[in-house]
C-alpha cells in the first residue's frame, strides 16, 4: 500500500505491507533509528513518537495508519544543523536523567508536549506524566528533576500571569 506522511518536517512516501508497524517503518524504511523498540506491546514507551503533536507508541500503530499524518521523532528534537540540544535534552544531561539511554528517546518524546504546556508542574504531575514509560536504569528521580528544570527554563520568559 502507498503511504504519504510528514516525518520531522519532510514529506515521505513509501510502499508498505499493511502489517508493517509504524516503528519498523520509521526505523528500517526511514532509517531513523533513534526511536527504540523495547516491548512491542505498548507498555515500555521506548518507541514513543509524536503523531500530530501527541505522544503515540509507534509499535501499536501500523505504518498505513500514519498516512497523511505528521510524525516527529527524537532526531527532530535538537535544532537542525547545529551542535545544540533542545532544553529538555540539556536538562536530561545536566541532571543525569539517563544511564544506558535506550528508553530516553521515548521519554523525551512523551515529555516534550508536557513541558511545553506546563510552566510549573508539581513533582506529582511530572511523575504521572512519565509513569507510562519504563526505565530500568535510573529509578526515575533524575528524570523528574530534568523535567522540572526544563519546564522552568523553557517558561522563564512567559508572562507574569503564569509565574
Amino acid at each position, binding site marked *: 500500500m502507498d503511504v504519504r506522511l510528514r516525518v520531522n518536517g519532510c514529506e515521505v512516501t513509501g510502499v508498505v505491507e499493511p502489517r508493517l508497524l509504524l516503528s519498523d517503518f520509521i*526505523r528500517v524504511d526511514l532509517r531513523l533509528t533513534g526511536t527504540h523498540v523495547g516491548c512491542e506491546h505498548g507498555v515500555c514507551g521506548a518507541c514513543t513518537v509524536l503523531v500530530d503533536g501527541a505522544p503515540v507508541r509507534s509499535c501499536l500503530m501500523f505504518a498505513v495508519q500514519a498516512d497523511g499524518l505528521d510524525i516527529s521523532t527524537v532526531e527532530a528534537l535538537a535544532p537542525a544543523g547545529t551542535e545544540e540540544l533542545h532544553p529538555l535534552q540539556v536538562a536530561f544531561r545536566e541532571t543525569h536523567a539517563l544511564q544506558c*539511554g*535506550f528508553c530516553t528517546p521515548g521519554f523525551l518524546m512523551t515529555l516534550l508536549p508536557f513541558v511545553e504546556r506546563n510552566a510549573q508542574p508539581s513533582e506529582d504531575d511530572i511523575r504521572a506524566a512519565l*509513569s507510562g514509560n519504563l526505565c530500568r536504569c*535510573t*529509578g526515575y528521580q533524575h*528524570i523528574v528533576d530534568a523535567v522540572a528544570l526544563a519546564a522552568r527554563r523553557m517558561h522563564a520568559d512567559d508572562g507574569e500571569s503564569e509565574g
Partner: protein
Amino acid sequence: MSGRFFGRRLPRNEDASLLTGAAQFIDDIDLPGLLHVAFVRSDYAHARLNNVDLSRARRRPGVVAAYAAADLGDYWQHGPLLVGPPPIDGLIFHERTQVPLVRDKVLYAGEPIALVVADSRYLAEDALMDIAIELDPLPAVVDLEAALRGEPAIVHEDLGSNLAAHCVQTKGDYGAACESADLVIRRRFDYDRGAAAAIENRGVVASWDARARKMMIWDTTQAPIPVRNGLARWLGLAEREVDVVAPFIGGAFGPKIMMFYPEEVLIPWISMQLGRPVKWIEDRSENFYATTQERAQIHEAEMALATDGRILGIRDEFLHDTGAYDPYGLTIPINSQCTLLGCYDVPNYHSEFRVVFTNRPIVTPVRGAGRQHGVFVMERLLDIAAGELGIDRVEIRRLNYLGPDDFPHHHGLVYQDFSSLTYDSGNYEPALDRAVELIGYREFEGDERPPPRQSGRRVGVGVVSYVEGTGIGPYEGARVSVEPSGKVHVATGVGTQGQGHYTSLAQIVADQVGVDVADISVVTGDTREFNWGTGTFASRGAVVAGNACHAAAELVRAKILRLASELLEAPEEHLLLGGSEVRVDGDPERRITLADLAVASNPLRGAVAPGTEPGLEATAYFGPSRGTTASGVHAMRVEVDPETFDVDIVDYVVVHDCGRVINPMILDGQIQGGVAQGIGNAFYEHLVVDDNGQLLNASFMDYLLPTATDVPRVRIDHIETPATDTPLGVKGAGEAGCIPTAAAFAQAVEDALGIDGLEIREIPLSPNRLFELVRDARGGES
C-alpha cells in the same frame, strides 16, 4: 586522590549521542544483504523431542535457510563452563551447560528447537508456523524440595538426581555456640524469581567476510573479549580473525555477560554457512524465557544469641535453583553464603547449600547476584531476634557490628573469586547513625510512634545494613594515547551498559595527562581496540578498569614530561602539565602543547635513542589479589493501607560507603536506579510459573516493573572509607542499591502493620500476598 576532575559531579561525555538518537544500539546495525533470524522455542518445559520437520518452512518464499540440531553437525556442542567450582573441601559440582538447539530433550519452556533465516524478520516469523515439531511432554520439575527427592522427574537423567552441587563452608564451631546460647531462633525464608528486564532485549549481528577471513560480530554482551575468544575457538578461527563489538547497550544487569547463549553461538555460524550478514534481535516475549534469570532460594536458617543480643553463631542450609543448566558455576550461591555475614562479627558459622536443577530458564547472576538472599536472611533473623529479646532493631545491629579497628577482617570462607573472604576496610556505625537520623527512626521508638494516618494507613520504618563484595579480579587493562590532535584516547576491555565509563574513566585519566574530560574519548567493549580483559560484572568496572586506566595514564604522564623536558630544555620537576600543554614553571614563554608533543613523539626522519618507544602511549593492567568490600545502610519509611495492603514508600535513605567517589552524580544514579530495582524485586516483580513450568506472566502487562509513581526520591549520603588494596581507593557501587532493599521493605511493612505473629519471610511480596500473610497470622481471618 582527588584532583581537578576525579571526584567531580561532571555531566557525561556519552549523553549527547544518546539524547539525539544518534547512538548505535544493536538493532540499529544495518548491512547490505542482511538476513534475519527467528527461533521456534519449546512450549513445554520438559519434553522428549522426536522429530523436527523443516521442509515446508524451507520452501516458503523469502526463506533462505532453516536449521535444527541435526543440521549443525560438529558445531553442536555444549557451551563452556564459565566459572568453575571453587576450591572448597568436599564440594560436589555437576557441570551441565546449555546447547545451541535441542537435540533430544527439552529442559525448559522457551528452549530453542529450530530457526529460520529469511529476508525479513516478518517473513522469518511467518515461516515458524511451517515447522512441524513432535514433542512428548514429561512432568516438569519446578518445586525445589520435590526436585531433590527426584520428583516428579529428573532433568539430567544421566545424573540420576536433580542435585547440581553441594557445598559446605564453616568457621568456628556452630554446634558448641548453639549449646551455650540463651536463645536460638530458627526460620524458613523463601525467595523467588524475577527478571533482569533490561529495556533493550538481546541481539546479535554477524558478518563473515570469506576473502578477508574476518568474522565481525556485534553482540549485546557485557564481556566482548571472552565472547570473541570463545567463539573463535567454536568457529575454528584464530582469535585475530574474529572481532566482537558491544555497541551501546540498553541495560544489562547481569544476563548480558559472556553467556554463549544459543543465539550468540548460532548467528556467526549461519553467516559463515550462507556468506551473508545475519541479524537476530530478541523480542520481549522471548526475553522472558531465553534470557537468564535469578533468584529462587529456600533457606532454613538458625541464629544463636546471648541475652544481650550478641550473635554467637549462625547455621544456614539452603537450596538454590539453577534452572535447567549451570554454566555460571556456583557464583550466586557462594555470594549468598558469604554475603550473609554482612557487617557483623559472627564467630561461628555453618553454611551449607544444595544447587538444584529444574525445568526452568537458566539462572546466572542478575544485579546483586545472590547477595540479596544472604542479606535478607541475616537482617530478618536480627529483626526476629530483636523482637524476642526486647532489643531495639537498630541497637542489635550496632552491637554486632565489626568495629573500625577490626579491618582487614578475615572470615576465612572461600569467596566467588576463589580468594579468602576478607573485608579490606569498613566503618559501619557512622553510616547507621546517619541513616537513623535522616529517616527519623527515633520517632518510632517506644509508645511515641506515629499514629495511623487519618486515612487509616499505617506508618512504619525499616533500617538494615549490608556489605557488598566488589571489584574482584582477575584483571583488566587499558591503553592511553595522546593523539596528534592533542586529544586523548582510552581503550579498555570492559563493556559499558549505562554506567558512565566514557566519563568516569576519562576523569581518572584527565588528572594524570592534563586534559579536559571532554577531550578524552573512551572506547569500551570493542576487541578491535583492546585485546585483553574479562568484562563488566560484579561491580568491578570502576575498581579494576579504573585502576588500570590510572596506571596507564601515569605511564603516559611520565612520557609526556620526559619528552617535554627534552624539548623545552628544562628539568621535569620544573614542568607543569595541564590545560593540554606543558609549561615551564615561572617562564610563561616556554611551553608546548600536547598536540605538538604527540607529533614530536613520532618522528618521520632522523634517528632516535636506542630503546625509544614511539608515541605518547602506554598500556597497563591491574589485577587485585582480592576484591574490596563496600557497605551501607538503607532506611525506609512506608505507609500501608490495612485494607488493600497497598504500600507507599514515603521516604528512602541510603548511606553508602564505596570508598573514594569518582563522579558523585553517576554514583547517585547507580544507587537510585538500584533501589528502584530492589523495590521491584520486593513488591512488584515475580515470575509466576505453574506446575508445568509454564510462565504465566510473560509480558510487561503482567510482569510489573516499577514506574515513576512507585519509586520515591532516594536521599543519599556517603561515608568514605577508602579501599586499602588499590591505588585509587575506590570500591564498586553498581549493585549496592538493590541488595538490601527487600530486607528493609519487609521490616518496614511488618513494623507498619504491627500484627502479632506476622513475620515476612519471603520475597517478592504483593498486596495480595501481604493480605494472605496477615490472614494467616490472624489465624485465618483477615
